[in-house]
Structures are given as structure tokens and as C-alpha cells.
């Protein structure tokens, strides 16, 4: 296969990947953040300590993380159709990608938020702050750098997952690599695609690391 044929495929694949990963990251962040925070708050000794809710949320997250992604993608088809009107194509692939990434990110959020010094929470409570104050003014700002690091990890995992979007016609670089490299035995093209994926991953990681460094500069001990 010549470069002339590869180029449009690569371009479209990159666009599809960025499109799917971008949106699903956004949704995973919006879903995983509250879920992760709830996991901390409802834990024993937490501000909203509630063993039942905590165990249920923990179980949901665990099941979400262990279900084979392809199966989840298929099982979600009716839901995807209800949400975006169609169950196939790059837009539709966003739904299972996002839903798969929510429990993944939620666990990372949980770990980050848990690391916030409990003394800061007490300080906010001693000022008369309620749960919202603690979450919005203490837990989130204080764990921001760590949360960004977690989001970077999530984006990279999603780039990996998006290869399976091919099953629902999602396209993207991973699917291209599978189709051309695996099914059409165009090994050279596969390596070029993988190189592009690695470049994207590296850029994401460097960007994420940069933001984390920027946010940590003023931090360390309070």
C-alpha cells in the first residue's frame, strides 16, 4: 500500500480517535469525579459515612472495571441508541468508551482525594464549612494535580480501548491497525499506525505531566 492510500486513512483515523477519546474523556471525567468523591465520602469515617452506599458503589465500580469491554459495548447498544440516536459509528462509540472509563477514573479519583490531608478537611469544618465546602474548596483544589495525572492515565487507557470501537463501526487508529495489520496483513502500515498512536500517547503524557508540574510547583506540604 502506498503513501497516497495511507494518508487519508491515517488522517481520518487520527481524527476519529481524537474525537472519540476526547469526548469520552470529558464524559468519564464528569461521571468519574463525583463517583470517586462519593466513594471517599461514604467510606467509614467519611463525611457522609454510609456503609451500604459505599459497598454498592464499590461493587458497581469493580464490576464495571472487570467486564470485558467488547461485551459491555454490545450490551450498551440499546442505551447508546437512546442517547445519541444511533448505536454505530464514532459518535456512538463514545458512549461505551465513556461508560467503560467512568469506573476506571473513579478509582483514580478515589485514591487522589484520599490523599488530601484530613487536617485540611477539619480546618474547613472548624470554619463552619459543610460537605459542599469541603468538596469544592478543599478536596478538589487540593487534589487537582493528582486528578490531572489520573485523567492522563485515563486518556491513555481510552486510546487503547478505542481500538475496539471497530466492532461498532467506530473507526479510529486502533481499528485501522487491526483491520490493516491483522486482517489485511499490511504489516508495514500497521507499524506506521502504531507509531502515530505512540506519538499521540507521548504528547498526551507530556501535556499531562506539564500541567501536573505546574500545579504541584506551589504545593508539597501546606
Amino acid at each position, binding site marked *: 500500500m502506498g503513501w497516497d492510500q495511507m494518508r487519508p486513512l491515517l488522517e481520518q483515523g487520527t481524527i476519529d480517535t481524537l474525537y472519540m477519546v476526547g469526548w469520552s474523556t470529558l464524559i468519564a471525567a464528569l461521571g468519574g469525579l463525583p463517583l470517586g468523591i462519593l466513594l471517599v465520602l461514604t467510606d467509614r469515617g467519611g463525611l457522609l459515612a454510609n456503609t451500604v452506599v459505599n459497598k454498592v458503589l464499590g461493587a458497581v465500580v469493580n464490576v464495571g472495571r472487570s467486564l470485558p469491554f467488547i461485551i459491555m459495548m454490545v450490551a450498551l447498544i440499546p442505551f447508546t441508541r437512546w442517547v445519541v440516536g444511533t448505536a454505530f459509528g464514532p459518535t456512538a462509540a463514545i458512549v461505551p468508551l465513556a461508560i467503560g472509563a467512568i469506573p476506571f477514573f473513579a478509582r483514580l479519583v478515589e485514591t487522589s482525594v484520599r490523599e488530601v490531608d484530613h487536617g485540611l478537611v477539619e480546618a474547613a469544618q472548624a*470554619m*463552619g464549612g459543610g460537605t459542599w465546602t469541603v468538596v469544592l474548596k478543599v478536596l478538589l483544589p487540593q487534589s487537582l494535580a493528582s486528578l490531572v495525572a489520573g485523567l492522563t492515565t485515563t486518556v491513555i487507557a481510552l486510546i487503547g480501548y478505542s481500538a475496539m470501537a471497530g466492532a461498532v463501526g467506530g473507526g479510529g487508529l486502533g481499528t485501522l491497525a487491526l483491520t490493516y495489520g491483522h486482517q489485511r496483513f499490511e504489516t508495514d502500515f500497521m507499524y506506521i499506525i502504531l507509531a502515530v498512536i505512540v506519538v499521540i500517547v507521548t504528547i498526551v503524557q507530556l501535556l499531562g505531566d506539564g500541567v501536573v508540574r505546574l500545579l504541584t510547583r506551589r504545593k508539597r506540604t501546606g
Partner: protein
Amino acid sequence: MITTTDLTKVYHSRGREVTALDGVNLHVRPGEVFGVIGQSGAGKSTLIRCVNLLERPTSGTVTVDGTDLTALAGRGKRAGRPLREARTRIGMIFQHFNLLSARTVQGNIELPLEILGLTRRERARKALDLLDLVGLADKARAYPTQLSGGQKQRVGIARALAGDPKVLLSDEATSALDPETTRSVLQLLRDLNRQLGLTVLLITHEMDVVKTVCDSAALMRDGRIVESGVVSDLLATPGSTLAAELFPLTGTAGTGRTLVDITFHGGSAGRPVISQLARDHDIDVSILGAAMDTVGDAQVGRMRIELPGRPEDNDRALAFLRAQGLTVEIPGAAATPGVALSKEGA
């Protein structure tokens, strides 16, 4: 200003019960600086955390500025609106400062003002005023990591003052600081206490802190207050553990000589008591140990002197000292003041 009645707190952890507070009756008068000392694990932190109900007492009541906080607390574990509002009027400073590293100094001081719902403008004005008050006007835009320990604690104090509290709680606020910085932070607390009429309840394990700023003090042991009162009164109390801890004395008597511990409380210290004793009674007074200081502006302290002859030979000298209004003890005759005695204290 702060009153606790029969306050108890029992922790349950892994099936074991720990009684951290065992019936504490504390009474802090308006405008005074009240120090609580005691060994590690005595329950000091638990006590102060019960005062603003960060920790729910197991039983007993806490009243601050006339409001029964325990009544406001409600059933659930979460702090309801009335309790949260009461807390905005009680400032608290912490040993490890607990400043938000992600906010500037000004931002940290504005946090309680945000909770109070002030506008951005009011917040900024108030925060800058407070920074002026604690002497950090030029650090408004710095981040906590860029500050020294003492500066961090000043920010902590400014933040605690943001809600115009009448009461300031301090849990080992100077324990992480070196002595020079400790002195300046304590001075600031003393000044605020005078200027703003602030009532301060402070917890420490350093006797020096009590000596330097406290009007009253209490000694805790095993979840109970074993001694408490105005510092100068405590000094006048024979056998007081607190007094002995505040002004420790060392030295033992030679054979056939008399050891005398004298406690000065209030004005008498300025008078030439020892030299008068020596001249009037014509005896050699050896000063073996002495700890004299300025406590809350009064010259106070203790001194261990050695007189020639046995105790019974020195009746006149002892009578002279008592006549000067001093507390006179003969260590060894009564129990030695200090740790051994403290169990009977209070």
C-alpha cells in the same frame, strides 16, 4: 465564655474502648488566655475538638458564649446549619497549620469569609486587614510553601480571626516551631487577646507556653482535669503540680542543713527578700536553684535555698519568709513537689 459540664468521650476502635475524656468540667472566663497542659494521650486534643464539636462528646454539654453547642448538634453525624453557624464564630488554629497549599495566603484567609458568604470585595478588604494585623501585609500573594513556619502560623491565626470570633482555640499551635518563632507567635496571641478582648483556649505540652501567655491553666491526666485555676493562685498552692512543673527546681541539701522552696507570686519578688533574710537574721543563704520569670506581667517564680542548721533551727527564718507573703515549703519534710505528688492534685 467556654464551659463544659461532665464532658466524656469514649472512642470505640476494634472492639476496644478508649476513654479519652472522663468527666471534664472546664470553665474559661471571657477575655482570658487559658492553657491546658498534660502528657501525650492525656486527652487535650480530644477536649479542644469537643469544644467546637469537631468531635461529638459521648455525654456532657459544651457551652460557648452562652450557646449550648451540644444542643445544636442534632442527631446525625453531619453538622447541621445551626452548629455550622456557631462554628463560624469560633476560631481554631492547628499545630500543622492546615493551610490549603493550592491557595495564596490571601485565598486561605478568604476561605472562612467565602463560607460566610461575603462578596469578593469585602473578602479582600477583610483579608488584607487581617494580614496587616498579623504583620504579613506583604505576603498576600505568596503560597504557603513559600512561608516559614512562623509565617504559616500567622496566616493560620489570621484565618481563625476572619469570622470575628470571640473565642480562639489553639491545639499545639507552636509545637512545630522553634523557640524564637514560638515566642513571636505567642506574643501575637497575647496582643490579640488584649486588643480584641479575645478569649483563648490553648493546648500545649510545653510549660514555657503556659508561663509566657496564660492567665489560667489546667493540667490533664488520663482524660481528667487534675488541677486548674489562675496561674498566680496555683503558685500559691502548696504542693501544686502545675507550679512545680512551671518552675522546676533542683539541688539537694548538705547534711545538717535545711532545704527551703520559696514561691514568689505577684509583687513580692521585686523586694530584696533574700538579702533582708541574710542581714536581719545574720545567716548565709545559698541559692541552689531558681526559676523566676515574668508570668502575665507579675514577677513570679520559685527558688530553692539552703540555710545552715536543721529545719527546727530555722523557725524564725521561715516565719520571716512567710510574713513576706511567700509560700514556703520544706522539700522532703512534706512530699517532694513534682511528679510523685501530682496524683493527689486538684
